[in-house]
């Protein structure tokens, strides 16, 4: 198992996603002899997980069953330990496309945070690209390093514990793309610029507040970035379901409703059933503004 390559079967040391049901999952590190408690009972790693094919149904000790899934960056995003606010898949997908990421790309990121985006970047730039990720918070940087090791992607990433606004990304002229998710992105723009190759590249800054976007755009323009584009993407999940609608009873022309005993079946209980999809009662209305820009060739 690796977060950038599929395997068929579960091995010791793997991180697997235990799928308990709709919107209920957990990430589990597989260890010989270990047990994991779920609401359906315990999963014994040695007999229930190791050697099993990813995607298998596993019966827990109480008789309930779960599926064990191969981790992907997207499943990891839903199950990772939060050390910060994280980026979710909708934004990540947009960032990945708009930064032109692909295998072989060199990317700079700050901050690493909980590593949600980092894993998605690594998946896309593997096997020949590299991620330089900078995290201000020492403990978080260390935890990220450990996760990258566990997910077998450590060779693709360099984690630096420093302040990107002061000390930049630690590399110059190598990046195809830079991503910023920091409180004052405008303070890191010149570092971002110098990190990008002289042949040009792409930049993305993620900010929750419009004032941050405004300051960032101003600096981006003055730093010579072009093709500025600020956007928002919202994903809406629809609940597919059958809905039964009663049909109105307008009565017969002679003034009686059809509910009388002599006209079965009573149409006042007549219904029509439709298949439909309904939006959620509440959904994310905002995560942040995504500002993209191009550094033209020097």
């Amino acid at each position, binding site marked *: 198992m690796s977060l950038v390559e599929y395997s068929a079967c579960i091995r010791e040391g793997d991180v697997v996603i235990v799928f308990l049901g709709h919107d209920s999952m957990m990430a589990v590190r597989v260890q010989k002899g270990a047990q994991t408690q779920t609401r359906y009972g315990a999963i014994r790693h040695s007999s229930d997980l190791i050697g099993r094919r990813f995607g298998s149904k596993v019966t827990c000790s109480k008789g309930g069953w779960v599926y064990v899934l191969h981790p992907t960056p997207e499943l990891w995003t839903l199950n990772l330990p939060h050390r910060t*606010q994280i980026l979710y898949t909708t934004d990540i997908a947009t960032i990945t496309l708009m930064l032109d990421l692909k295998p072989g790309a060199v990317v700079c990121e700050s901050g690493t945070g909980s590593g949600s985006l980092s894993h998605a970047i690594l998946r896309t730039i593997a096997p020949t690209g590299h991620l330089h990720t900078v995290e201000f918070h020492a403990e978080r940087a260390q935890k990220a390093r450990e996760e990258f090791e566990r997910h077998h992607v450590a060779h693709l990433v360099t984690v630096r514990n420093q302040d990107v606004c002061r000390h930049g990304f630690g590399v110059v002229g190598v990046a195809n793309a830079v991503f910023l998710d920091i409180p004052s992105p405008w303070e890191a723009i010149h570092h971002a610029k110098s990190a990008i190759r002289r042949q040009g590249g792409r930049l993305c800054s993620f900010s929750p507040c419009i004032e941050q976007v405004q300051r960032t755009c101003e600096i981006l323009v003055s730093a010579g970035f072009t093709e500025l584009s600020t956007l928002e993407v919202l994903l809406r999940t629809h609940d597919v379901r059958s809905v039964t609608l009663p049909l109105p009873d307008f009565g017969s022309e002679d003034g009686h409703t059809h509910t009388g005993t002599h006209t079965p079946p009573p149409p006042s209980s007549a219904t029509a059933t439709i298949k439909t999809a309904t939006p959620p009662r509440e959904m994310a209305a905002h995560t942040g503004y995504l500002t993209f820009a191009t550094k033209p060739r020097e």
Partner: protein
Amino acid sequence: MADNGDDVDAEYSIRDGDYIVLKRGEVYKAAQIQKKRKVIFEKQWFFLDNAVGELFGTTFEIQAGGTLKPHAPKQAPSAADKEAKEAGTDNRNIVDDGKSQKLTRDDIEMLKEQGLKGQEIVQQLIDNSTTFKDKTEFAQDKYIKKKKKKYDNNVTVLKPCTRILAMMYHGREPGKICHLRHDTLAQMLTLGNIHAGSKVLVFETCAGLVLGAVMERMGGYGSVVQFYPGGGPTRAGMENFGFPPHFHETLHEFPLCKVNTLLAGKLGAEWGPEASGDPQEEAPDGAEGEEEAPEETQGMEVSAEGEDSKEKERKEKCREKKAQERKVKMEEKRRKLVATAALLEGRDADGLVIASRFHPCPVLLGLLKFLAPSRPFVVYCQYREPLIECYTKLREQGGAINLRLTDSWLRHYQVLPNRTHPVLLMSGGGGYLLTGITVATETDAAAITTATQAKEEEPASKRIRLEEVDGTSSNNDA
């Protein structure tokens, strides 16, 4: 029209029996002022007695024993909404050791005993939280909301209106109003051209909220006909508006199950003043149904028991009296039905508003027949598919133009210095609307004559004329 004196304060004063809305933060609850009656709101109970005589919009503090004490104006809600917040942009420095709150439970109790108000306690909690400043804004808001809910003991008394009641229902019980969002209701009232002096048809199963909203926009002028399924119309939501009595005189009701009879022109023959119509025969009908049923069942149970003659006599009298009452009631009902039928027979209503859990297609096609040409109609449905069907059927049968199937998207913003962004959560959907305008069909020539005749017999309320303006070119009236 324009008034500015103390004399109008009466209009703004809370009186015993008034329908009101309680508010705390974004939470609303409709209630009625009833002395010595306990009200429960946000897990707190209190009495509204002290609200009487105060002005609408007053914020009260809930004191020991559930009595209300009015705040001085100004001091109240705005201040409570502004915390001196200083947000961290991420949780960079937060180490969760369970020791972030320096105030103990005892400390808080002491603050309460010292007479600190809810908002002040929340501010104390914030000031004594070592991690608050480093929390992200989202986490701060969550924290404040949680604490506020726990320690807030303010409640504001508002005058009900469509805006507030629509937000209240959508927030508390969206299922009761078919998930109709307030901005969608706004579209309905405007696209339906609901206004004073018109004759509007309403069919809704939104607890009476839509009916109330329509009546508010009519302002007591014109007439509203509420169609209803089953035993009787639902009006709780409308009652919550607390309309003055004359508004209720403009409201009429008509059972769905009589629509076909009316359309066939047979209602008059059967129910008109000439035909005496046996009410007994009508009793088990759907139009009566739910309301009457329990009473009758009770009666039958009693008569099945063995009784002595005195008791029997009493029962007999009681039964006769009840029968008499029922007869009077039925007669009243008949009279009202006939009056409502007269409003509909001309097929010249000015607007149609549908918002129900019923399949909108047959409802719309049925009720559209009562509209005059060149009048707007609006149909709300929580789901898209039934309105696609409505649209298709209407296009096939004609008689309606400018059909539009729409949905809307509503997002709120937090506007604060350097922290402006959309509010983080929004409603996923506000339902769908089908709107259109009726037009005369080819075969309308006859109908037009009928309608014009019928117009003469309409209640006066329908015809409030602004003669001084409108009459200028009446010589050209065909």
